[in-house]
């Protein structure tokens, strides 16, 4: 196993004679090489030299890449509200490698969140958070939260329309806290409203405060990994017991362990190189993200969207019943975080293998399903009106060809009253409300009139905004919207006028 490494290693040492004496000089004074050698060659369970165990080191290398690219960006970026946007444009268009480094920082952040999530899922499914590695897990959850904090603050530093309105969303969420809501908003924004002091605040958080915490927590996390050893490959039936676990682990590692470097580290090295190469390739192919439009709040045609890590939250906020929102934001989210932190404290022993932990596996599947579905919905955001539908989309020819003049007037009403901001016709338009193609097969004339005038079921009432003649034309047009082979909707029996029998 050591064979391929020994040859080049020995040759290098022979070539580097003078370097060796420098290294020896340093070693006498620091003793770091001895300590590090001991640390990186510590024995790990043989089966953990697996591809499943590479996500932690891959996250670490992406963090290092973020630091390197981040420091470079800070050399040019101006953290002042009046110049930040221009400095980003300068980075994109003029600075040598500026656009590439911005792209690498953006794709690196996406990669870091993604790989960190994979690492967390692997650790959870392999039961690695159980005794004695509870604190490693807790530090890891805090690292995850800090990374999401970096993602949010980083997206604010892009100082474009999305950043401005993203801050509005963040502040509006904070404002829902009882009693201290208003105070939180002012602390978050650094003033009464989103402005210059807000950007400076988020710059300080993104560049000094959170990275400091991240580095400290990473140190603790790594120290704990070294001290407690890499989690063994979980075997069904091998139950964690606080009394016996450590002795059994030490025995196994000494009997059948392999040195972390180079045996297990080989796969880590490949994993680290691959994630960095993928990030750099994405940066080269797709380029930087934004900035999208200057952060001018008087430009009202903004359609703010968050970066992908917050798309599921964005979708959740559109889909939750309004009365549950505040509770879920202020109680549900903190509770979920506490639950995640406390996981090893109430599930610290027992089975580690996913084969014997069906609830754990199902939870992971459920969470993944919910998060990815919400994120996909967030991309499509069918709840958002298509703001320019009234002027940008034409009425499909098939719906106006050969129609009576009144129907055509109705088609104009649909267009002019921005019905298609929320309702699609011929597959084009908003998806907030149901598509109008075939509406006549679902609603009768009376039901159509009532729906238009009174609204309901998420539709505003148009009673005050439409003249009777407009309603008449609109409904006449809507009644033509059905396939020729389908009958129009019929009123339910109870609603039909019944002849009185006095």
């Amino acid at each position, binding site marked *: 196993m050591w064979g391929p490494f020994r040859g080049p290693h020995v040759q290098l040492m022979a070539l580097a004679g003078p370097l060796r004496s420098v290294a020896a000089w340093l070693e006498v004074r620091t003793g770091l090489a001895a300590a590090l050698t001991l640390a990186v060659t510590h024995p790990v369970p043989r089966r953990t030299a697996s591809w499943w165990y590479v996500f932690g080191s891959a996250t670490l290398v992406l963090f290092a890449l973020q630091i390197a690219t981040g420091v470079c960006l800070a050399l040019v970026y101006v953290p002042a*509200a009046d*110049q930040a946007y221009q400095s980003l444009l300068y980075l994109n268009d003029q600075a040598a490698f500026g656009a590439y480094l911005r792209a690498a920082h953006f794709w690196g952040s996406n990669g870091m969140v993604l790989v960190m999530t994979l690492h967390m899922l692997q650790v959870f499914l392999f039961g690695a958070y159980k005794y004695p590695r509870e604190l490693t897990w807790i530090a890891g959850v805090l690292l995850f939260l800090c990374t999401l904090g970096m993602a949010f603050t980083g997206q604010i530093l892009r100082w474009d329309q999305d950043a401005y309105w993203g801050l509005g969303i963040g502040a509006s969420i904070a404002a829902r806290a009882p009693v201290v809501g208003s105070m939180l*908003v002012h602390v978050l924004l650094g003033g009464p409203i989103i402005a*210059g002091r807000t950007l400076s605040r988020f710059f300080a958080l993104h560049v000094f405060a959170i990275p400091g915490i991240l580095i400290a927590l990473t140190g603790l996390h790594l120290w704990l990994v070294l001290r407690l050893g890499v989690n063994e490959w979980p075997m069904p039936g091998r139950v964690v017991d606080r009394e016996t676990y450590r002795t059994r682990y030490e025995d196994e590692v000494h009997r059948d362990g392999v040195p972390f470097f180079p045996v297990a580290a080989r796969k880590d090295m490949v994993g680290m190189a691959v994630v960095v190469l993928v990030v750099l390739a994405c940066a080269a192919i797709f380029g930087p993200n934004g900035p999208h439009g200057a952060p001018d*709040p008087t430009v*009202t045609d903004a359609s*703010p969207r968050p970066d992908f890590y917050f798309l599921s939250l964005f979708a959740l*906020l559109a889909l939750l019943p309004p009365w549950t929102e505040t509770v879920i934001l202020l109680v549900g989210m903190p509770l979920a975080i506490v639950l995640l932190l406390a996981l090893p404290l109430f599930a610290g022993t027992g089975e580690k293998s996913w084969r014997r932990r069906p609830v754990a596996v199902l939870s992971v599947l459920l969470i993944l399903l919910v998060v990815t579905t919400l994120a996909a919905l967030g991309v499509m955001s069918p709840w958002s009106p298509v703001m320019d539908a009234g002027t940008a989309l034409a009425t499909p020819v098939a719906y106006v060809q050969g129609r009576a003049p009144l129907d055509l007037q109705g088609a104009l009403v649909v267009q002019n009253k921005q019905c298609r*901001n929320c309702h699609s016709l011929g597959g084009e338009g908003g998806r907030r409300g149901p598509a109008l193609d075939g509406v006549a097969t679902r609603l009768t004339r009376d039901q159509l009139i009532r729906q238009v005038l009174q609204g309901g079921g998420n539709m*505003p009432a148009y009673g005050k905004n439409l003249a009777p003649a407009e309603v008449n034309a609109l409904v006449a047009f809507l009644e033509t919207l059905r396939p020729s082979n389908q009958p129009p909707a019929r009123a339910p029996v109870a609603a039909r006028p019944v002849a009185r029998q006095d």
Partner: protein
Amino acid sequence: MCANHDSLASTPSRRGFLFTLGLALSGLAAALAGIPIVGYIFGPVRGRAGQAWIKLGSVATFPEGQTRLATYDNPFRVAWDGPTAKIACWVRRVGGDQFQVFAINCAHLGCPVRWFPQSRLFMCPCHGGAYYEDGSRASGPPPRGLFEYEYEIRQGQLWVRGGQLPTLAGPV
């Protein structure tokens, strides 16, 4: 023997005193550094004091029965605010001196609502909230109608009281 005993007894008390002194001085230093730091971080907290009267323009520039976008400069602006010093609001002149001035921020989560004069609705691009022309909630997730500014007419000029981000905790 006796002196020896005294010195043995005094040494721990001297050490103890030094330790206590060290703790007390460090505590004092931490407080003297920490209090201003905390005060600095929480400095922006001001309740409704973060509000001021702002002139939006002549009443004549707002046609009766119509809703128009108006912009003003944040009264608490600093020199480096750039484009974020500007704030927009929707001014509806109901008739005569009767106005409604709405914050541009959706009551749901603060996104910029847009006015559609043809359908007489405000629509939000983020989560699909909609409001009627009088600012009342029409549909979608907003828990209330649009935030409304206090206004005054002074010598033919429309003034509003604003300057803070309108949220559920601190409407304008």
